[in-house]
């Protein structure tokens, strides 16, 4: 036998306890949607997992009303430390149910279990823990003392990291004192609904988080709803643009995290084997369904051939197949629609004259799959060097000098992420200084941490998620009444006020113990 044909090692689905139908989570309870339900499928097998409700306009109204009611009645009156207690409890429940959530995420999204188990779900918990800690320290969030929450936040999230994106949105919003109506992506609603069960387990006051499902029109109704104070969207640039247009002229606060075409710059003095790992992690992590993917490899001309040879060799060890198998590196593409887009752009790359190379791997019969692919001889004018492919497809370009690398890296309408590979610290800092990207990784790629702000320049969006900066998207400076603030005297009434607020909320405090 061949050792490298590792025997199947599938993760068990036994601890999953899925329902056949899921309703909308409004005001703390599951209710049937009034729109037409749709099925959610496993993209690796195309088999139905469950039926998901669609929220129509009336459902959106109900969800926003529930969020408003919870905001006015409970959440905005709760002390920061009490909000933190709920978030800590949610974080612990996520950890307790981590394996179950990971299996559900892999089933619904198609990503390999090793990623949902080792990356997605741990980060979900980390995000909740991190912002739980912030809830009673908002004076230090950078928006001045005693900042105010915004109200009801409408949040629309994508399908690439369903539960992780949910945590990125919900955790800071709740910590800052807002209530939430969240709409997960149409193809990946499942884990959001399991998360709703966790919220019930955590006894989160009804209406603080509402989760409504449906397609793009549900999302559109939600962000356009006059009752929301804040819109947060992660997804494609075209939808982001439409949202910006519809929100313009209202007093809704908006943050957008959109597409990207990240440059991964490899200098000739790079730690070469780790750089190859970083290239792989940059573009093949999560099948390349990563907005901050390093989808453009900029490699110094003098080491181009060596890097490509090493990269191809490494790519041959990537294992594509059953996402639930613990040895799978490359899972399924999330939807037929996305697969069609990846194919279209890849074919275009070939037509435009770039050289295509894919790994030699067996593609399963059912489901949506795309073999890891690289394009060499790519020019900056090629579509595959400009458009976000959002798949396991890497475009390789070369450069000769640091100035050329910077110019090529910045030559994109996007500006979300970049990577720099060099053994020379001074060069890393000098180049990073000139790159217009919200996140720059040095000698690593696609690393996430709740304490680190994440967001884009230009068409990659605005606003930051994560870290102290992520709170700013859900806070506004304190409303000043009358007299100008005197820094020294200011703290005394503030602490008094919050102390009395927590006294008032003893029942909620009990719940959050």
């Amino acid at each position, binding site marked *: *036998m061949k050792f490298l044909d590792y025997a199947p090692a599938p993760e068990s689905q036994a601890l999953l306890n899925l329902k056949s139908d899921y309703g909308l989570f409004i005001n703390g309870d599951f209710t049937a949607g009034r729109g037409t339900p749709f099925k959610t499928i496993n993209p690796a097998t195309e088999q139905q997992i469950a039926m998901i409700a669609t929220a129509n306009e009336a459902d959106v109204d109900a969800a926003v009303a529930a969020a408003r009611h919870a905001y006015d009645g409970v959440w905005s009156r709760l002390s920061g430390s009490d909000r933190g207690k709920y978030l800590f409890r949610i974080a612990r429940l996520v950890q307790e149910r981590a394996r179950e959530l990971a299996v559900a995420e892999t089933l619904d999204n198609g990503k390999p279990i090793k990623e949902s188990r080792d990356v997605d779900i741990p980060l979900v918990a980390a995000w909740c823990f991190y912002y739980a800690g912030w809830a009673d320290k908002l004076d230090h969030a950078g928006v001045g003392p005693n900042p105010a929450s915004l109200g009801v936040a409408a949040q629309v999230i994508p399908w690439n990291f369903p539960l992780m994106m949910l945590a990125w949105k919900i955790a800071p919003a709740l910590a800052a004192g807002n209530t939430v109506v969240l709409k997960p992506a149409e193809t990946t609603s499942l884990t959001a609904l399991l998360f709703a069960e966790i919220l019930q387990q955590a006894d989160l006051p009804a209406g603080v988080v509402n989760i409504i499902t449906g397609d793009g029109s549900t999302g559109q109704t939600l962000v356009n709803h006059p009752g929301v104070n804040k819109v947060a969207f992660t997804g494609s640039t075209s939808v982001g643009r439409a949202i910006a247009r519809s929100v313009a002229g209202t007093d809704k606060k908006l943050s957008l995290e959109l597409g990207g075409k990240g440059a991964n710059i490899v200098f000739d003095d790079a730690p070469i*084997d780790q750089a190859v790992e970083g290239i792989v992690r940059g573009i093949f992590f999560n099948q390349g369904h990563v907005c901050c993917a390093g989808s453009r490899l900029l490699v110094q001309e003098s080491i181009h051939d060596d890097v490509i040879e090493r990269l191809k060799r490494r790519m041959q060890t990537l294992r594509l197949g059953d996402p639930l198998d613990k040895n799978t590196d490359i899972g399924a593409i999330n939807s037929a629609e996305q697969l069609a887009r990846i194919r279209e752009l890849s074919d275009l790359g070939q037509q435009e004259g770039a050289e295509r190379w894919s790994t030699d791997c067996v593609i399963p019969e059912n489901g949506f799959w795309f073999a890891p692919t690289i394009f060499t001889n790519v020019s900056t004018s090629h579509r595959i060097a400009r458009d976000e492919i959002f798949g396991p497809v890497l475009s390789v370009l070369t450069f000769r000098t640091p100035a050329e690398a910077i110019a090529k890296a910045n030559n994109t309408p996007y500006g979300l992420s970049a990577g720099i590979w060099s053994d020379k610290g001074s060069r890393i800092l000098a180049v990073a200084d000139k790159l217009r990207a919200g996140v720059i990784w040095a000698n690593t790629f696609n690393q996430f941490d709740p304490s680190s702000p994440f967001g884009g320049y230009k068409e990659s969006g605005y606003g930051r998620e994560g870290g102290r900066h992520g709170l700013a998207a859900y806070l506004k400076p304190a409303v000043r009444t009358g007299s100008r603030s005197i820094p020294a005297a200011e703290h005394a009434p503030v602490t008094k006020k919050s102390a009395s607020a927590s006294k008032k909320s003893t029942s909620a405090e009990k719940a959050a113990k």
Partner: protein
Amino acid sequence: MTHSPLATYQPEQRALALIGGEATDANLRRYLHGIPGIDAVGLEARAADLGTRSIKTSSKRWAIDTIIGLIDLTTLEGADTPGKVRSLVAKALVPDPSDPGTPRVAAVCVYGDMVGTAVTALGSAHAAGGTEGINVAAVATAFPSGRASLAIKLADVRDSVAAGADEIDMVIDRGAFLAGRFGQVYEEIVAVKDACRRADGSMAHLKVILETGELNTYDNVRRASWLAILAGGDFIKTSTGKVAPAATLPVTLSMLEVVRDWHRLTGVRIGVKPAGGIRTSKDAIKYLVTVAETVGEEWLTPHLFRFGASSLLNDVLLQRQKMTTGHYSGPDYVTID
């Protein structure tokens, strides 16, 4: 795979061609420092990632038997006696008396003065460098510190080879390496290699111990690996087992990467031997995965990969018994040496 003319060269010619001059400190320094560096965080992350491979059922069974066949069963104690060595040899021949189908280990590894005892104890099962049977490996060159004059080190080697050792595990002069005297380290390896020559002109296999725990950085490990291979080492070995940390997965990964690059460059295959600290089947399987996914599974043969270990064998045997019988036995169901 590119097979350059370097494949046909003698090691010294090859080194000369690659270094671009005599093996002086300056030339070697220029060459070794021209090799791409290692990012420690990235290397360790990759090793950890390889460690998450899930090896089950038939793959696990294959892995367990393969591990046994790759072990250099080792005793390197000041308290070693001929009786202890005979006992070790008996264990090497029949690792599990309850299952005669258990594969034999690759070699026994002893101090130089015990080589004769080991050879005699093996009798007809002595592989003598062949593929059937068990080899005898001897640690030499003032193992483990290497702190002796070159003359003493070479005498140590010749003594072991004359006594019938098939493999010599030498230590490099870490002090010289860290002081930048690469030429001295190189010349010593060349001289030791020459001392591995038997009267009939054949050679004992040379494993070069880098003692990675004393080299401290991965960059140093990589440079020492290149140096050892340039000088003609057949194997590069992590550790003596007398210094902590001994073998680790990231260190072994970095050495495997050198071996892979050397094969790309010259077409020549060099062996790797992690030694010390590998005690469980679970750990050993991680090494198999790392070898297979870094250099390819053709490296999983005794000529190209070894585990230097003493307690590993019993854990592997317990796992093997468990896979055969379906239940765990216990330490009393495997022999102590």
